[in-house]
């Protein structure tokens, strides 16, 4: 039982620090995104990019800016991976194939960080540092910027202006992500994460053979991988690799970094709309779902139901002994509840139901707390749908924070919540209907889980892998790349369109007849809508995968 108690302490300490972060880091984030002053560096950036930081954008302009920036990033990163062999610090590695280059570029620009390659044997230091790591920063900043634009839609009235994407992007990168990353990297280096530009060391092993120990700028990339809920590991083994995540306490730090921004965003929301209780309510929805999920994964793994786990008295397969069951399970829950997708153990080796929970976490649309920014806008879109149904039940045209949720708003919210499940289901079905399913490692329901997980992870921009399945052939690279791009940018259009529509409205003053959106009843209702409307959509396919295997 001591492992259980240790696990409980591990989770409770995380909860405590995340709660503190919500309060203080959330306030800091709020000041960053709502401030009016520009630092000298920022002014220089604006001058170089050629934007007027005082000029605000309407939603189409904001959306176009997001897409222009992301398209440029995509092309740049694609070129980078393809031309690697001609660049310095390539460690003699060749360029990527076209489909893998596309997949990698799509993956990092969409904040998915799905890796169809093995980092240490595919990419040199330059691409890792100035290609992938840069995207780790800016793709995270894009997500936060879009969520802030949506919140401005709620907070503002009778305006077209949703803020300036370039200003949001620059500030979030320079004032939030960079400073925290620098501090975090130093902490991780202190914990034993490597940071060098070495091409690797060849050592003689005890058995007499030689082994290549790859080095590299790991800590600097590791920290933003977690902080920006990116998840793309320097090494193929991701956070299970001792150079990325050496000890249980760096494991704690990494989970904390994953949760830091997503759980702070509701505070930004509450502050910006001028009612902190609204932020608390959104936080509560996220927390209920997250805590339930963490408890479930831990329970399934610690109860180690199944033949092999029974034989060895633990569901230890595929988990690092230095973390143990609980710290691994909690990591996996955290990484799929957010859009991080970093892993310190692989769900393929989990118990069937234990492996299903991370899948469900992603299927929910990653809203508890979700990716940086994307989690907040995801849950707000679901809250809009909840408000609509619940609002009708109190006998008024539904309104959320004084903004009416009428046909136009519900159209955008509906389209938003349609996209990701559609992409998951269609991708999965095409793979299962064609020979492409044959790259799965296992057979039967477990093999199917591998396919389902892959598309769930890609479409929801998570990037974690169930493992087992081989996904780096041309079809898989192309298909998952498409899923990632559609799953990221199409919903953003609807988020920004909704923001534009909300911002134009004149707010309706609250009265006793207004549905209160900060009470436990409403919190429970959002949780219910998330579970019934979304999770149940996937029940049929889950039945043929993990449920068939695990019941």
């Amino acid at each position: 039982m001591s492992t259980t108690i240790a696990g409980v302490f591990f989770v409770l300490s995380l909860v405590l620090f995340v709660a503190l972060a919500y309060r203080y880091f959330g306030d800091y984030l709020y000041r960053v995104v709502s401030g009016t002053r520009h630092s000298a560096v920022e002014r220089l950036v604006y001058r170089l990019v050629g934007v007027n930081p005082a000029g605000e954008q309407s939603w189409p302009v904001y959306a176009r800016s997001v897409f222009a920036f992301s398209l440029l990033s995509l092309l740049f990163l694609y070129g980078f991976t393809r031309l690697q062999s001609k660049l310095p610090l390539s460690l003699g590695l060749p360029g990527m194939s076209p489909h893998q280059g596309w997949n990698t570029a799509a993956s990092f620009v969409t904040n998915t960080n799905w890796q169809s390659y093995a980092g240490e044997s595919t990419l040199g230091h330059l691409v890792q540092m100035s290609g992938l790591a840069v995207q780790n920063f800016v793709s995270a900043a894009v997500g936060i910027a879009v969520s802030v634009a949506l919140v401005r839609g709620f907070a503002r009235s009778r305006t077209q202006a949703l803020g300036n994407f370039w200003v949001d992007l620059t500030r979030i990168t320079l004032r939030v992500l960079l400073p925290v990353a620098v501090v975090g990297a130093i902490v991780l280096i202190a914990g034993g994460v490597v940071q060098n530009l070495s091409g690797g060391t060849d050592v003689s092993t005890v058995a007499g053979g030689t082994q290549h120990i790859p080095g590299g700028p790991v800590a600097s990339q590791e920290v933003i991988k977690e902080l920006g809920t990116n998840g793309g590991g320097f090494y193929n083994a991701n956070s299970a690799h001792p150079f990325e995540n050496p000890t249980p306490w760096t494991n704690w730090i990494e989970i904390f970094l994953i949760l830091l921004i997503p759980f702070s965003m509701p505070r930004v929301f509450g502050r910006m709309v001028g009612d902190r209780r609204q932020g608390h309510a959104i936080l509560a929805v996220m927390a209920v779902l997250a805590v339930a999920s963490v408890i479930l994964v831990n329970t399934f793994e610690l109860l180690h139901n199944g033949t092999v786990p029974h034989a060895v008295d633990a569901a230890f397969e595929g988990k690092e002994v230095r973390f143990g069951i609980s710290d691994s399970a909690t990591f996996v829950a955290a990484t799929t509840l957010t859009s991080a997708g970093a892993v310190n153990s692989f769900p393929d080796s989990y118990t069937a139901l234990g492996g299903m929970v991370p899948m469900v976490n992603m299927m929910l649309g990653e809203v508890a707390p979700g990716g940086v920014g994307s989690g907040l806008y995801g849950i707000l879109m679901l809250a809009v749908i909840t408000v609509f149904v619940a609002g009708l039940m109190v006998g008024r045209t539904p309104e959320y924070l004084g903004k009416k949720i009428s046909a136009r708003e519900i159209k955008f919210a509906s389209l938003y919540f349609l996209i990701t499940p559609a992409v998951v289901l269609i991708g999965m079905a095409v793979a299962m209907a064609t020979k492409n399913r044959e790259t799965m490692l296992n057979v039967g329901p477990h093999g199917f889980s591998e396919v389902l997980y892959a598309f769930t992870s890609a479409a929801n921009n998570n990037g974690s892998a169930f493992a087992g399945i081989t996904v780096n052939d041309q079809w898989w690279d192309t298909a998952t790349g498409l899923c990632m791009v559609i799953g990221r940018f199409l919903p953003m259009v609807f988020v920004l369109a909704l923001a534009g529509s909300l911002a134009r409205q004149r707010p309706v003053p609250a009265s006793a007849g207004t549905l209160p959106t900060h009470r436990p009843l409403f919190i429970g209702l959002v949780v219910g809508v998330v579970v019934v409307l979304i999770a149940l959509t996937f029940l049929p396919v889950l039945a043929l995968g993990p449920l068939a295997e695990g019941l």
Partner: protein
Amino acid sequence: MTAVAPSVEAPRQIGGGLLDPRQLWKSLPDALRKLNPATLWRNPVMFIVELGALFTTALSIQDSSTFAWLITVWLWLTVIFANLAEAVAEGRGKAQAATLRRARQETVARRLVDWAPGQSAPREETVDAVELRQNDVVVVEAGQVIPGDGDVVEGVASVDESAITGESAPVIRESGGDRSAVTGGTRVLSDRIVVKITQKPGESFIDRMIGLVEGASRQKTPNEIALNILLAALSIIFLLAVITLQPVAIFSKAFQGAAPNTLTINEHGVTGIVLVSLLVALIPTTIGALLSAIGIAGMDRLVQRNVLATSGRAVEAAGDVNTLLLDKTGTITLGNRQATEFLPVGGVEASELADAAQLSSLADQTPEGRSIVVLAKNRHGLRERDEGVVPSAEFVPFTAETRMSGVDLPGDGATPDRRIRKGAAAAVMRWVRENGGHPTEEVGGVVDGISATGGTPLVVAEHVAGQPARALGVVHLKDVVKAGMRQRFDAMRRMGIRTIMITGDNPLTARAIAEEAGVDDFLAEAKPEDKLALIRREQEGGRLVAMTGDGTNDAPALAQADVGVSMNTGTSAAKEAGNMVDLDSDPTKLIEIVEIGKQLLITRGALTTFSIANDIAKYFAIIPAMFAVVYPTLDGLNIMRLSSPESAITSAIIFNALVIVALIPLALRGVRYRPSSASSLLGRNLLIYGLGGIAAPFAGIKVLDIAIVQFIPGIS
């Protein structure tokens, strides 16, 4: 509108909308007609069900089995039940429209050519009523039917409007003022009036009413459109979930090669019948089936209360109203000042004051005067004396100059001459002084006290021959607030609606009445333009405003308000400007209109919640039924322990269809609505329709399985 025919005066059914089973039967042909895909596609959810039913019909013909036919029949029934709901809702309107059509008789109009005000003998020509144009002038005499909507420009007449209002008592219509509007199809009972036609041909009030009650001009309301979008999105997701399941099912069946082929799954995957069943079970059929019936029934409930809304949008807006503007007179108060108290001064007995006041009011036929007589009788048992009882009494009428009225009673030897006066304090006190009296400060105190509470003080004084005149006391006249208004306003407040009283009174009086009635705010000394400004101000703050009005000068405000209810007695200008007409001309009805609007939205929300919550049980019925034969562990999901896969699926589909029929009465009647705060409404409705929606299908499907379906040959 239960009583459209002039002769029938049935009590109005306020709860309204109880379903007569015969209506279901009568509407069946309409329901079948609605199966036409060209019209059904407007309802995406039911359209999907119909396509599914067509598909399973083809499959059943191809590969016949009891199970396949059973599912097919119930899928068709699902669509028919949905159509039935709509047909029943429309059917009620159609009956009313038929009665109205009878009122729209072919009439002949006597058009006046070159009519001008005051002209004695204009040229007259006879034309068909349908040929009348706007601004034509017609003459109508006793016994004739008014050929079109218009305003009386000359004369006064009593008019029988029972054809549209159901009210058999005739009403007076006269030129000028706010009672000048007449409606085509109504009959002049006495006298002669000249009417200027205001309608365009074919757009008369009755035409509009017919269109409205028939639902011909029914357009989807904003919230209905929004809800339809959500339902369509849900349907698409479930469609995808079902279609994409097939490759996985084929893969799973192939993996478990030893699993037998059954009616639910074979080597080609899940059978078409079962796939369609899963889809129909998951898409929100309940709300999809009842959505339009709810909207039609909502309008119908208004019509039953004799309110005509020109658009469904207005009914919905009524539910959203934040501010109610209510005219004081006739809405909040009874309409006239009434005596409520006798306040004697200078040691005079209250009964003595009452007696004097009564004597002085015997000839006073104003409502105030009558109320004094009534109060004297009620408080002091003073029987009403006819004017003749005091034979020699000489009554002094009220004049604007003296500002008092009274009575002179000549002496008969035993009693001296006695004169009594009542009136405005200043006038009566001057009269007292003129007749040798020295009024004390006391009277002034009482008068000021009454004024301060918004009442009207009426001082009563007497002068007996040979003695100095003296003030007897003060009669307190005040506006009497209608019974129950305070409770209604409290209810409004709980619903989050602010009530504002509009009055021409001075601020002091207005405040007192506002406090007594319990309204939230008041607008005193209100002129029409003040009303308009107030509405604009409220709307600036994002609020929706509802008001009633009847006069032409109300028209701009009625047009500006989000919900403008004009009185049927009002002018055509007012009726045109508002978006609802109350045929009973009862301004208090605004409150009911708001409640109907809310009830409409609540019914939609509640049934949507119910529909979505239903899905949980259906998953647990159908998923194990589909796949337990492939993966026996999935029988663990069969928590209802249904007897066989076929029985489980059939029971789910039958439940799905029956629940539509079961909820038709609720859709037509609307869910129970009690004014309360949003929180408590939500809590209550979630409990009933959310938790109920989760629990009901578990019970229903299980019961169907045990009781019927498992005994059908070929199912168990």
